[in-house]
Structure formats: C-alpha cells, structure tokens
C-alpha cells in the first residue's frame, strides 16, 4: 500500500520520461500488478495527448499582427488611456445602461454637465486666443515636423504602390524618371527629418526607406528589368509598404488626437 502511494506520485514523471532507470523499472513492475495505477497512467496520458490540440494560439494571429505588436505596446506606454476596449467591457457597459436606471440618470447628468463645461471652456479659449498663440510657437514647430512626417509617409506610400504596380513591357527598359526624381526628393526630406527630434521608430523606417531609395535612384536609365525587380523584391522582403502604411495611419491618428510622440526615448 505504501508502495502504491509512492508509485502514484511518480506516475506523472514516468509518463514524462523523467524517471531514473531504477525508478522506471520499479514503476513498470508495479504497473503490471496494480489496476488502479494502470488506469491512472492511461488517464494522464489521454489528457496530456489532447493538450497538443491547443498548444499555439499565437499562431492564429497574422504576421501583420505580430509585426505590429511591439508598436502597440509602445503606444500603450506612451499613452496609457489608449487601451483597446474589449467586447466584454462593452457588454458590461451596455448592461449597466440597460439594467440600472439610477446609473443611466447619473451618467446622462454627467454628460450634460461636461457638455456645458466644454462649451464654457471653448468660449474662454477664444477670449484667451492671443496670449495662447504666443505661448504655442514651440508647439507649432513640433506640429510642423509632424505634418512633414505625415506627408513623407503619404508620398512614400504612393511611390511604393506605384513601383509595385508598374507594368513592365517585355524586353524594354522601364522608364523610371518620375519615380526616381520623387525618390531623390524623399531622400532629402528624410535626411532632414531625421535630424529633428522625431520618434525613433519613424526615424528607423525612414532610414530603411532611404537605403532602398538610394539604390533605386541610382539605377541607370537603360536599366534591365532584373535590377528593377531586385528593388521590388527588397521592398517586399523588408515589408516596407506595410510599415509605411502603419506609420502613415499612426501619424494621422497622432495629428487628430494631438498627442504626438515627441521623443526618441520613452518617458
């Protein structure tokens, strides 16, 4: 009986192949004669095998999702209010409204109050407009840089989409004059922007983009299709279009919420 209890404790290790040779032999001996332990082993094994069907939920998310994950975390650090609202929370809020009349009345009152205060504040802001404008020269600088970054990403996206869709006539050198001159402008712009206090992620993306564009802008006019295809492959491989799109939408959001990411380092 003592033996049986001792063996029971070892059954999990036995199944996991974590027993020393001697212990393994003892367990196997015991299993030949003990129905209870035999059943336990079958039971443990059965369930452990079934675990295999739920090992990797992360893989159910797309590559884009994971490419973007760290960025979302960073945004959350920079802006703690920027939490995604889970559907469950929405349900809870909903039930709050449906179930609780008092809460509904309180919330409506609060909203009306906020509206009144908001209107009052807007009036006040208009009265104070002149001195505020003086104080916000610095903010304007930041806002200007923001705007330029937004512009840069927008133009880069257009260029990349254009390059991706460019139809090549067979056996002819592609005419890349327009695209190349846009590239040179973008290179100049990003070199200048990278000197500004912009967020590190945008700066890195600009640098990656620059590397590709420098190569691209140097392609001679009578270039072969192979050279051009190499560039396209590089854009594809570095996932540039996706990143640029993300950055563009981030800068749209930023300028709308007026909470730009200002520093290279996190707070």
């Amino acid at each position, binding site marked *: 009986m003592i033996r049986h209890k001792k063996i*029971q*404790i070892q*059954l*999990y*290790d036995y199944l996991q192949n974590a027993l020393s040779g001697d212990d393994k032999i003892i367990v196997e001996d015991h299993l030949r004669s003990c129905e209870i332990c035999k059943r*336990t082993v079958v*039971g*443990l094994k*059965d*369930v*452990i095998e*079934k*675990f295999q*069907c*739920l*090992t*990797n*939920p*992360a893989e*159910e*998310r797309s590559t884009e999702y*994971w490419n973007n*994950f*760290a960025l*979302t*975390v*960073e945004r*959350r*650090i920079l802006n*703690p209010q920027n*939490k*995604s609202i*889970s*559907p*469950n929370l929405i*349900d*809870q809020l909903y039930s709050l409204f449906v179930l609780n009349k008092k809460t509904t009345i309180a919330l409506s009152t609060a909203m009306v109050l906020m509206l009144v205060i908001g209107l009052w504040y807007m009036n006040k802001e208009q009265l104070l407009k002149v001195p505020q404008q003086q104080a916000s020269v610095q903010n304007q600088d930041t806002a200007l840089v923001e705007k330029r970054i937004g512009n840069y990403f927008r133009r880069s996206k257009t260029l990349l989409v254009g390059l991706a869709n460019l139809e090549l006539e067979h056996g002819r050198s592609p005419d890349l004059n327009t695209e190349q001159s846009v590239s040179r402008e973008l290179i100049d712009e990003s070199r200048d922007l990278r000197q500004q206090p912009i967020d*590190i*992620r945008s700066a*890195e993306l600009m640098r990656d983009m620059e590397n590709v564009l420098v190569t691209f802008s140097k392609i001679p006019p009578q270039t072969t299709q192979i050279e051009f295809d190499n560039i396209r492959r590089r854009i594809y491989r570095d996932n540039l279009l996706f990143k640029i799109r993300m950055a563009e939408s981030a800068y749209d959001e930023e300028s709308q919420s007026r909470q730009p990411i200002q520093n*290279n*380092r*996190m707070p």
Partner: protein
Amino acid sequence: MKAADEQQLILRVREGDHEAFRLLVERYMKYAYNIAYGFVGDHDDAEDVAQESFVKVYEAIKSFRGDSAFNTWLYRIVTNLSLNRVRQKKISITNMSIIENSATHTGDFFKVHQAEETREIIEKALHELPTLQRAVVILRHINGLSTRQVGEILRCSEGTVKTHLHRGILKMRTKVDFLKDEVV
C-alpha cells in the same frame, strides 16, 4: 539569445533604450500571448493581458534584480495579470457556462468529432480547474515550460507543481472522458 546578451538588453531597456525594449517584446510576445490565452481562453483578452504585461515590464524593469531569469519574471507577471482577468470575468463566465452546458448536452453530445470541438472541451475542462492546478497545467503543458520553471514562476517547489499537475490532469480526465471512444 545568450544569457549575457539578454542581460545587456535589459540594461539598455533600463536606460530607456527604445530599440532594446522592442527587441525584448518581440522575443517574448508570443510566449506571453500563449500563456495569457491559456488562462483567459479568448484572443481579445489574451492580447490585452499580453500587452499590459509588457507595459508592466517596462514600468518595473528598474526593480528587476535578475534573481530569476527574465522570462520567469515576465511569465509571472503574465500569470498574475491573467488570473486577475479571469477573476474579473468570473461572473460573466459562470453565466455563460450555464448556457453552454445546456447547449452541449442537447443533441449531438455523443457525436463530437471535430478537433475544434475537442479543443473547446479541453479548454473548458481546463478552465474549471482550481486556480493553482489550472496554472501549472497551462504553464507546463500548453506553454511547454519545465516543472522547475513553473515552480519558480509560481514560487512553489517542483514537488508541489507535480502534485498539482497530477491532480489537475486526472480531474480534467473525468470531464473529457466521453471523448475517449471516438479518439480511438
């Protein structure tokens, strides 16, 4: 990644290095996600918990002394946040499972064929385990950590981990037992 490299990375994060933090997140995000998912059983919540865990890491990295490995520390944060989340959701889950139970027991209860359904049943059985048993099963069998590391994460001995595993798995078996025939 070598331990020394990781140490270096953590030092850089402490100094406020953005890039280093991103590398750290990218290295561990899927592990954190899988652990969270094991507990909360839902992609939206898993995402929220995993992200929140990294926010916590960022906020608390200065207090991380390296007594345990970084991943042990991180997984402990994920586990704690996951358990909090489960606790918060408990009421709505209890309400849900009443409905689910009645649905499962009508109709095709014995015709469970799809892997998808097996998975659902396993997940459900898992979520009905007591907290500690559920935690050890998730960390050990869903995330493939060693019993030693599970003990470190939950701050208990390896022996305790094994006892909980043994009990938890056997308890789950009684709930998934009816699957036995069709699996053969």
